Each structure stands twice: as structure tokens, then as C-alpha cells.
């Protein structure tokens, strides 16, 4: 119990609570019909972006390797999963969705993981911005290859219309999406908290020191690539089931960047809550800005710059400090002071 209430555990519990809260909110909105059409259509995209953001955070924030090709893993997952679903629905028309959708998710994820491992191998030699280019290049290669594969629809796109009924699509998919995201979040957070997670962070902070401590750096790097790609693939399967047409040109550099923006905005590192919130906000933001019509994307870009300047300019650290909620800070300082005093008392007593 004591272990469960450690600081990290409490943080993860909060993340889970927020996730459950978000999904409960979505579910209530859909079930009661209170959601506007626009909001209803945004719900599934929000869930797969949450999944994409936390999996990319695992790669960028926890392992510390910049990836500009996350959309590539997503597209591998999307095409694999949807191809499977279409096949299953075609050959076994009576197969219920709770059979084929999870199977598709698993297979899409596994295929993406395979590609993740393949891309993880160059990562053993190539580092930093060079690795970013390798991932970008990989994403472009996937895109080009799929366009030329006729059994995946090529340029015309892969038709996924039949696999999910049109009526109440968001409500049909939400339970699967919620399940996938919550299970993934638990798995990822457990991984980060575990012995392996600490090893991965050690690799990020100082590779040589980690190696000297007997950590198998190569294994962990490739493993994280595979794991992150797996979840991106699952997100891709969700994407494909929510849309009715997969086009490989969708999964381009810009989409990878979109996910990266969420991760950086939400704060990189072992805390996944930021990524979750940023994913929701950044999916909703362009939609909220629709009322500005022609100026929408202009305002979006200005907001992006201003947010980045505000949150990370060193010169504004003072302002950020002042704006932060003082009572939380006070509470924390008080607690630390109390703990220190207690410890000091204890040592005093022992000395006596």
C-alpha cells in the first residue's frame, strides 16, 4: 500500500483517473445525445491521438530519441488492421465486431511493432537529428510503397466502409477505443515505472554510464522502438475503422509533426498526463477556431508560437513562476519542510 502511494504511483493514478474521466464524459455525452455533431465526430480522433501522443512520448520523452516518422508506424498498423478486418468481414459476414476489431488491433499493432524494430536497428548507430531524418525517411518510404500497392487501393485509397456500420459510429467504436487507450496507458506507465523503465531513462540520460552499469543499451533502444510503434499501430487501426477510406498520403510528415507538437506541448518525460491533455486540446483547437473562418489556420499558427514562447522561454520563467498556483507550491514546500523536520527529529532521537 505504501509503495502504491509513492509519488510516481500517485501521478500515474491521476493520469488514469483523467483518462477514465475523459472517456466517461465522452460516453455520457454520446449516450444522452448531448454531444453536438462536431464534437461527436471529434471523439474517436481524440482517443487515437491520445494513444499516438503517449506512445511517441515513450520514444521521445523517455528514451530521448526524436522521431519524425510516427505517422509511418500508424499507417502500417492502419493498413494491416483494416485489411484484416475487411477480409474477415468479407469471408465471415456474421462475425461480430468484438471479435474482429480486437484481432485487427492486435495484428495491426504487431505489424507496426515489427517495422518499429526494423527502424530501431539503425537507431543503434545513428543518433539525434540524424535519427530523426532516418525516421522521416522511413515514413516517406512507407507512403510511397503503399501508393504503389494495388491490393491496398493505391492512390485511390483503401475502402474501409463496410467494416463499421455508419449509424452511431462514435458510440460503437468508443468502448474499443477507450479499452485500447486505457490498457495501453497502464502498460506504458507500468513499463516506465518498472526496472526496465529506469533502465531506459538511464540510457536517455547517459548512455555510457548506463552501459557501464550493465544495462543492455541496444536491447532497450530496439525494444522501445517496437513498443512505441505497436501502440501507434493500434491507433492506426482505430483511425482506419473510424474513417471509410485509407489514403497513404494522409500519413505524412505533417501528421508526424502534429503528434510531436502534442508531446512537446504536453511536456516530455515519464509523466503521460501532459501528453493526454495536449492530445485532446490540440485535436479540439483547430475545430474551435472554425468560427474565425479564413483566419483559422493563421490564428492556430500564432497560438502555437505564442504557447511555445510562453511555456519555454527562459526569460519568462519569472512570470510563469508568479502565475503558478501558489497554494500548491506552498503545500509542497510545507510538506517537504515537515518531512525534513521529522527526519531531523528522528536522527536526533537516535543520537540520544
Amino acid at each position, binding site marked *: 500500500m505504501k509503495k502504491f502511494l509513492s509519488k510516481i504511483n500517485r501521478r500515474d493514478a491521476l493520469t488514469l483517473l483523467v483518462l477514465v474521466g475523459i472517456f466517461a464524459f465522452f460516453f455520457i455525452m454520446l449516450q444522452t445525445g448531448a454531444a453536438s*455533431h462536431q464534437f461527436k*465526430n471529434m471523439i474517436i480522433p481524440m482517443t487515437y491521438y491520445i494513444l499516438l501522443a503517449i506512445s511517441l512520448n515513450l520514444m521521445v520523452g523517455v528514451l530521448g530519441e526524436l522521431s519524425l516518422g510516427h505517422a509511418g508506424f500508424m499507417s502500417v498498423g492502419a493498413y494491416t488492421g483494416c485489411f484484416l478486418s475487411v477480409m474477415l468481414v468479407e469471408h465471415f459476414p456474421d462475425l461480430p465486431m468484438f471479435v474482429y476489431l480486437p484481432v485487427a488491433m492486435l495484428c495491426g499493432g504487431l505489424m507496426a511493432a515489427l517495422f518499429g524494430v526494423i527502424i530501431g536497428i539503425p537507431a543503434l548507430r545513428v543518433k539525434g537529428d540524424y535519427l530523426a531524418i532516418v525516421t522521416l525517411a522511413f515514413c516517406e518510404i512507407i507512403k510511397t510503397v503503399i501508393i504503389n500497392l494495388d491490393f491496398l487501393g493505391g492512390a*485511390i*485509397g483503401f475502402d474501409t466502409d463496410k467494416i463499421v456500420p455508419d449509424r452511431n459510429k462514435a458510440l460503437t467504436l468508443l468502448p474499443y477505443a477507450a479499452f485500447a487507450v486505457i490498457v495501453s496507458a497502464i502498460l506504458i506507465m507500468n513499463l516506465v515505472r518498472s526496472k526496465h523503465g529506469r533502465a531506459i531513462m538511464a540510457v536517455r540520460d547517459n548512455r555510457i554510464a548506463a552501459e557501464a552499469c550493465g544495462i543492455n543499451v541496444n536491447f532497450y533502444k530496439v525494444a522501445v522502438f517496437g513498443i512505441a510503434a505497436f501502440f501507434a499501430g493500434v491507433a492506426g487501426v482505430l483511425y482506419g475503422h473510424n474513417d471509410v477510406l485509407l489514403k497513404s498520403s494522409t500519413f505524412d510528415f505533417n501528421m508526424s509533426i502534429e503528434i510531436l507538437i502534442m508531446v512537446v506541448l504536453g511536456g516530455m518525460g515519464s509523466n503521460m498526463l501532459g501528453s493526454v491533455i495536449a492530445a485532446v486540446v490540440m485535436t479540439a483547437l483547430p475545430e474551435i477556431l472554425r468560427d474565425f473562418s479564413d483566419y483559422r489556420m493563421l490564428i492556430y499558427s500564432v497560438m502555437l508560437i505564442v504557447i511555445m514562447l510562453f*511555456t519555454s522561454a527562459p526569460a519568462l520563467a519569472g512570470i510563469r513562476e508568479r502565475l503558478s498556483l501558489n497554494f500548491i507550491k506552498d503545500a509542497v514546500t510545507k510538506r517537504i519542510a515537515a518531512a525534513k523536520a521529522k527526519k531531523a527529529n528522528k536522527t536526533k532521537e537516535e543520537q540520544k
Partner: protein
Amino acid sequence: MKKIFSLVLAVLMVASCAVAFASCNGGSKALFEKDPEDNVIVKIGGIGPLTGDYASYGNSVKNGAQIAVDMLNESGALKGIKFELLFEDSEGDGTKAVNAFGKLQDDGMNVSLGGVLSGETKNIVASAAESGILVLTPSASAKDAINKDNAFRVCFNDPQQGLYAAEIIKEKGLATKIALFYDNGNDYCKGNADTFKSRAAELGLQIVTEQTYTEGSNTDFSTQITAIKEAGAELVFMPIYYSDAAKFLRQAVDTLDTVFFGVDGLDGLIGECGTEHASDCEDVILLTPYFADSVDPTVKSFVEAYEEKFGATPDQFAADGYDAVLAIAEAIEENGFTPDQLMEITAEDFNKKMVAAMTKITVTGATGVMTWTADGETDKDPNVLQIKGGEYVEYKTADAE
């Protein structure tokens, strides 16, 4: 620092949810609203790429539709009924188009113009199936972009055009050795090229080379041009858009002395080449239901109004957008809706009647005289045109002259 930021984010998130909440009203409201002059407003909702790579297509459709709306409102063709155009940006992305569709539904859209591109339209059509609202897309040409009962289109579908093109080339004896040149990553181009290929094979036309490019590499065509030359083609069939065609011709005219043949995507080529490169597009043949220099009175009045308002010559997309709105007005007229009836009618009834009317109406628009079949396809004649001296003229074979 992180804490305050996540708090700001959280507040934003709550705010966004609140916005989502606030925008939903109860279902008891009447389907239509009235303007201050007591006219019933029919809201037409369009979606298309207004930003990003395909921005020009979306803007053309939006402007063309706006012209039609203005004209209808001015002329008062339908007594007591006015139109309003709502147009949302899709950035050319299917998921965002569906979000935009939701936004339009929230804003009380009565009839949908679907999407401008095929991919986004397919998504919108799937999303619209639930309410059964009439979807009439101006320009989504992929065969199965309108695969639901309530979806129709103004333009030809891709297979139709590829078929016509092959038949005309055979019929007029334009060439026997043909080079195909198209954007391999674009559904419109690919769809056209695929049917052209199979039809050409049936007609005994020989495809000597097939050269493609992709969106990312649509600036430098030197390799393809060299290959077409080496293959000894007599005609280049290029089912591509005028913007790429202008770039291609710019680089190709000096090297290739073949016939250039295109489909409706090439309309707008003259404007694109402008006075600067007018010679590039000389003698190009294209198959199109619409061209801006037509003497047809409907086209003329449309082009004049468009040029006056937007200072540019309307292209195929604009004409399609214009015709879509005209067709919607015609469908309302066909049903004989009076303003009072409209204020009473339920959404379900209105949608059903509008969809039913689509197969009965005949519309004379900028892209010709159109009727629709139950599977949503339009029936109209394409013109075979040739560019001569910076103008479109009806194509005549050499011996006919």
C-alpha cells in the same frame, strides 16, 4: 512550470468541452430559420480544402457556389425562399472533413454539397448516411465516393471520362501510339488513367509508355519528358489538373511535338498559362463539359458574374459548385415547397423528398444540361475542345476543316 502549463491546458480543455456542450440545442426547433424579411432560409453546407495544397480547388467551388446563391437570391426565383452558403475548411483531409460536416450540421445545414475532393467526400457521405440529408458533391469524381442512396454528383466520374477519351481518340483517328502521363498518387488521375488504359486496349490503341509522378515531385518532369520522346509517342494522354499540366507543358513543349490530350481537369489551363506562357498550351485538346469562353447564355452570365465578384475566370470547379447550387434550387422547386410548408416539415421528410426529386429534375447549368440517375451519376455531354490562340474552340479534325 509544467504544473502551470498543464493547468492552462486543463482549463482550455474544459472550455473546449463547454463549447461543445453549448453548441447543442434541443431537437424541437423548426428545420428552417427565417430572415428579418420573413423569407425562409435554406442553408447549403459546403466543405473543401481552403488551406493547404489543394486550397485552390476548395476556393473555386466555394466561390462558384456563392455566385449561384447570390443569383438565386437576387432573382427571387423561389418565392419567399432564400439560400445561404456555409463553407468549412477540410484541409483536404477526410477526418477533418467529417468534423467540418458535424460543424455544419450543428449550424443547421439543410442540404450538403459534400466535399470537393473524392476522399473527403466518401467520408462525408458515410457520415451523412445516418441523417439521410441530400449530398450533392460538385467535384468528387472517384467512382465510389458517392456509394450511398442520398449522394449525387455534378461532375463526371473518373471511369466515364477515361472511356470517352479513349473512344474519341480512336474515333477521330488522333493517334495510335499513346503515352500516358499522370499523377500516380492522385485518385482522380489514377482513376481516369486506369479506365483509359483498359478501353484503349480494347480499341486497339497502343500505349507505348506510362509515365507518372507524385505530388512531392510535381515540379521537375524532365525524366518523364525524355522517356516519352524516346518511346516515340504520337499523343500524350494526361488526365491531370491544369496546375500540374501547365508546369508539365512549360517543360515539354520544346522537346515534344506530340498531341496533348486531357480531360476536364485541364480546364483553366489557358488562364494558368496566362499571357506569359500562352504558347505552351496552344493546340492542347481536352474533353470537358464546361469551358469559360462558351457562347452559351447560362455559362456567359455565370462567367460574367464570377469575374465581376472575384476578378478571376471561373474554372471547372467553380462551374461545378455553381451547378450544384442550381440543382438544389431546382429540387426544391420540383417538390413545390412553399415557405409555410418548409416551416412545418420535419428533417426526415425534407431529406427524403429532396433525394427523391434529384432523379426527376433537369438542370441547365454551366456544365451543360444535366439529369441524374438513381445511383447518383449525372448524364451530360462532354465537349471536345482545342486551345487555339488563347481560346477554347470546338475541336475539328484536319480533314473536316
